[in-house]
């Protein structure tokens, strides 16, 4: 029989101890974690960025990633979008009784691999086991701390008229890859989630220019919602061009089939930047050299017109408003 998580794994006794030792400490091994103190202690210098996010995703494993990779990338990316260099992460697991240990193993491995790539260290953790039905298989929370290098102020409220709006690559891969796995909707696609840590990409951008005013990763709600947030918080208009926004062919095909607009589909490895237009070219060049920014492009500009609104020039040369996503993305019925 397959080994499964039991309630006793969360009881604080011997099984809990073994779980932590064999399944978590083993793979995630590092001096700070190994100290097994109640808190990890370390020194940091400079301005600190601090963030947290919880991850619930169905299915747990999807083409291009899994909940573990997502939990590391998500928090690393949130830190990166503040211009911070991500340093330390905490990892908290809420596991449903009966969850296969083999799967847990795979997820922790994936967490370790992703943390390694992102050069972050997991220094604190917690595990809880809940009764069957009280959680859906596995929930993960990560919190992260990063250090912001001197001279960098990045915020969603600092976009200025005349700035260029840049996008790091094709949109919609994560959302569609996930959807392709949903029961009853399963369709064949070669598409994989774009889930990736973006700290090196941001690092490369900041190496060539400090005139990066806003950064944001367009996750849930997609590019459309992120641009609306930037326009709203900075009280400026944003004008984009449909033609310049890359969308992979399988995403486009799936969107046609389901009646979705790729602008609203989630991403997990893309960023939107608002940068001084004079520096846009060199920033794009630096991004193109990074594997996560190889098709980076300027997709529009910050304008004085229509503050708070995003307007798009369509491929046919007409213009329309691009609003926030309301509710969930749902396939068409008709």
């Amino acid at each position, binding site marked *: 029989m397959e080994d499964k998580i039991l309630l006793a794994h969360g009881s604080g006794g011997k099984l809990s101890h073994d779980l932590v030792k064999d399944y978590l400490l083993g793979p995630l091994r590092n001096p700070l974690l190994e100290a097994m103190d109640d808190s990890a202690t370390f020194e940091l210098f400079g301005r600190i960025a601090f963030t947290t996010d919880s991850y619930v995703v169905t299915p747990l494993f999807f083409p291009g990633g899994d909940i573990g990779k997502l939990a590391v990338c998500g928090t690393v990316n949130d830190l990166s979008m503040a211009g911070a260099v991500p340093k330390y992460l905490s990892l908290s697991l809420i596991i449903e009784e009966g969850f296969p240990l083999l799967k847990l193993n795979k997820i922790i491995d994936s967490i370790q691999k992703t943390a390694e790539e992102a050069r972050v260290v997991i220094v604190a953790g917690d595990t809880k086991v809940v009764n069957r039905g009280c959680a859906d298989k596995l929930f993960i929370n990560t919190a992260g701390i990063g250090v912001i290098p001197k001279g960098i102020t990045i915020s969603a409220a600092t976009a200025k008229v005349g700035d260029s709006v840049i996008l790091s690559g094709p949109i919609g891969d994560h959302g569609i890859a996930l959807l392709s796995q949903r029961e009853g909707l399963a369709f064949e696609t070669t598409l994989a989630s774009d889930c990736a840590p973006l700290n090196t990409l941001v690092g490369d951008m900041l190496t060539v220019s400090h005139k990066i005013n806003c950064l944001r990763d367009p996750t849930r709600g997609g590019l459309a919602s992120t641009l609306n947030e930037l326009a709203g918080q900075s009280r400026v208009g944003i004008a984009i061009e449909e033609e310049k926004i890359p969308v992979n062919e399988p995403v486009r095909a799936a969107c046609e089939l389901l009646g979705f607009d790729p602008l609203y589909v989630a991403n997990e490895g893309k960023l939107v930047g608002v940068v001084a237009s004079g520096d846009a070219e060199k920033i794009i060049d630096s991004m193109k050299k990074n594997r996560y920014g190889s098709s980076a492009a300027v997709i529009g500009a910050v304008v004085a017109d229509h503050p708070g*609104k995003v307007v798009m020039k369509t491929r*046919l*040369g007409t213009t*329309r408003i691009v609003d926030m996503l*309301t509710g969930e993305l749902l*396939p*068409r019925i008709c």
Partner: protein
Amino acid sequence: MKYLDEYRNPMTAKLLAEKILRRCGRTIRLMEFCGGHTVAIMKHGLRQLLSPRVELLSGPGCPVCVTANRDLDKAIALARHPDVILTTFGDMLRVPGSRTSLQKVRAEGGDVRIVYSATDAVEIARNHPEKSVVFLGIGFETTAPTIASSMREAQENNIANYYVHSLHKLCPPVMKALLDSGETKLDGILCPGHVSAVIGSHPYEFIPRDYGVACAIAGFEPLDILLAVEMLVEQIESQRPAVEIAYRRGVKAEGNRTAQEVLESVFETDAAKWRGIGVIPASGLTIREKYQNMDAERMFSPAIDPPVEQKGCICGDILRGVRTPYDCSLYGTHCTPEQPIGPCMVSSEGACAAYYLYGAYDGR
């Protein structure tokens, strides 16, 4: 899969639009029947491209929007039933009925679940033999066959706790009702793409024959729609109305026989109530005798209070092509996608939502 770009080629689209405008001797009024078309037209700004020569009116082709409050109320009553798991396509969740919505009933403890297909609902029934699983059958000829096949699947597998509340509606009869009313003078109809993939082009033949109104079946990409508009304008200008297929890659004249057979094996036509239009004979699908023990309406006969309409909402007029969302005094102020008053602002295929989300930027 490079083909989609061909249907979005901006140069071709512009040339086509110019050609259409040149061919129009007068202002031509077309109805885009399908909500999916309304969305595509707004999204790509086709109305701007074709104005003022070609007027495009939205029609009743949004299954969620045309569902009458009476039927929504019944669905809500079913969801309140303690033994029932109500399964539905997501759009239905937020649609306000007379007094509440499925979403609110869910928050109050009703078991309402979103599924992506009826097969998922059968699966839920299989996993919850102690519950009655009701699928809310909303849609046109497009979705009805898949729901019919879910019922056949349930029967073959002896799943006795799966039920369907059939609110399915048929497109050609509502077109007839609109034309009969004479309320909107139409020169042509953009016929639905996915519905026609199932029923083919023959069921529309009475439209040019009896009403002299042009018909073209359209796909959902900008060029698909422009191509269909071009066909319509040509038919109108040459005074030779017909039914043409501009969506050859999706629709055959005879439709999809297999899907038709599955549909007919489970459903039969009956009168149905449409929001804003009323009861139209033979415009809905009810469950045949043979499957009556899966008919939620028959098995649960949900009791409801007399339905009431949303005050000030003109969804009904919009669905008949008589008015546009811009004519509604609540549009964009009291009624938005976050706080919808009528179904046309909720459904992803609703005209009000499409106008609101993808409206042309006019400097306001």
